[in-house]
């Protein structure tokens, strides 16, 4: 079995440099690679292009990197929860490419699965399609969107093993599986690293072949953005 385990977040992030393109899993603050983000802050790498569905909130997630001006460009679908983000974008400090959420997912999967480009109906006739090739199939219009090219992908799973196999939990799964193997190097952090053989081979969400390094995160805050509850009657 090919071993992917590294012993620390520092070892995991070796090779991350200024001006690189990173993919980061998560939806809102759910399923984000918390430990990798903290380490990116510590490393003080700058000029990053980040492909991630959201941009965190002011004091958590990718917001931490935005505060330190480490991000040059964001590629996201929704960034409505972050004031600092909005400020940097409207002032022109931050380059932002907003793309449809399904397009984001599938451009990741295209990179993972060796497809150069895909045709999607999303965004046809909107400014998202400006300058892009469009094409009709069976009377419906589609936009040609290219596979992402990224240096590192950071994903967060619930459980994993030293072979790189991953299991996600609930909606914290989201973009994480799509980003595995979609960059030159994929780094997975997990809440619990279990002994090899403990995960049921039938129930592995992402096989280890898509992951180059794996480590157990030191701690997870797993912050909730909108705590909505009902009261017991």
């Amino acid at each position, binding site marked *: 079995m090919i071993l992917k385990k590294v012993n620390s977040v520092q070892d995991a992030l070796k090779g991350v440099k200024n001006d690189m393109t990173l993919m980061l899993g998560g939806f809102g603050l759910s399923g984000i690679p918390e430990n990798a983000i903290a380490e990116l802050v510590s490393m003080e790498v700058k000029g990053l292009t980040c492909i991630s569905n959201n941009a965190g909130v002011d004091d958590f997630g990718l917001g931490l990197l935005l505060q330190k001006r480490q991000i040059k460009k964001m590629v996201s*679908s929704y960034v409505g929860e972050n004031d600092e983000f909005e400020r940097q974008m409207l002032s022109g400090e931050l380059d932002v490419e*907003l793309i449809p959420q399904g397009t984001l997912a599938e451009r990741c999967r295209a990179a993972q699965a060796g497809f150069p480009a895909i045709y999607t109906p999303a965004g046809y*006739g909107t400014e998202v399609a400006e300058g892009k090739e469009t094409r009709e199939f069976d009377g419906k219009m589609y936009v040609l969107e290219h596979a992402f090219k990224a240096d590192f992908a950071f994903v967060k799973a619930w459980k994993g093993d030293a072979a790189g196999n991953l299991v996600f939990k609930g909606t*914290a799964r*989201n973009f994480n599986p799509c980003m595995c193997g979609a960059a030159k190097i994929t780094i997975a952090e997990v809440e619990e690293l279990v002994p090899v053989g403990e995960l049921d081979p039938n129930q592995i969400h992402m096989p280890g072949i898509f992951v180059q390094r794996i480590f157990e995160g030191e701690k997870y805050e*797993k912050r909730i953005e909108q705590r909505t509850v009902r009261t017991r009657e």
Partner: protein
Amino acid sequence: MLDKNGIAKRIAKEVQDGYYVNLGIGIPTLVANYVREDIEVEFQSENGVLGMGPFPFEGEEDADIINAGKQTITTLPGASFFDSATSFAMIRGQHVDLTILGAMEVSENGDIANWKIPGRMVKGMGGAMDLVASAENIIVAMMHTNKKGESKILKQCSLPLTGVGCVKKIVTNLAVLEVTQNGFKLLERAPGVSVEDIQKATEGTLIVEGNIPEMAV
């Protein structure tokens, strides 16, 4: 005139037995509260869950179980979790039967704008562009006019579009409208609202044929 819950209540009548439904943020989320109890419906959220239930009881929130509005939720028996690519396979592949979402503007030809006000508000489209480009059956839930009293039911959208020619039906605080080849066809009036009121609040072509019934909410 309807309030937000009234709009949600009216839209809930459009939800049919056996429908998989995607609800957008805002008024659409409220629709789940009013769906008839004698029909079977499943709610999908594009962040990766099918079979959403109500909000959790206090103390039972799970950071790993949220909807696309980032709200903590629960799941019902028969629910499933999946990744974003699979989620949009459901949407793009037209397995979701009905999409209900909000809008800033809708035009006569069914264009919708709801993601950007240039220079002022840029939250992003999230999954909305995929939803409107894919769904066969799209209902827009919105207020008929904006805070300044200007119509949001237009000849042409002025804001950057989310999708073209995709909206089929609109439910506002004033009316139920159908998007037709010739303009917005008035189907129903909100309680206490006259055809004239609706006409005044509608910038786009309004088609009024025969007697327009008041909606039963």
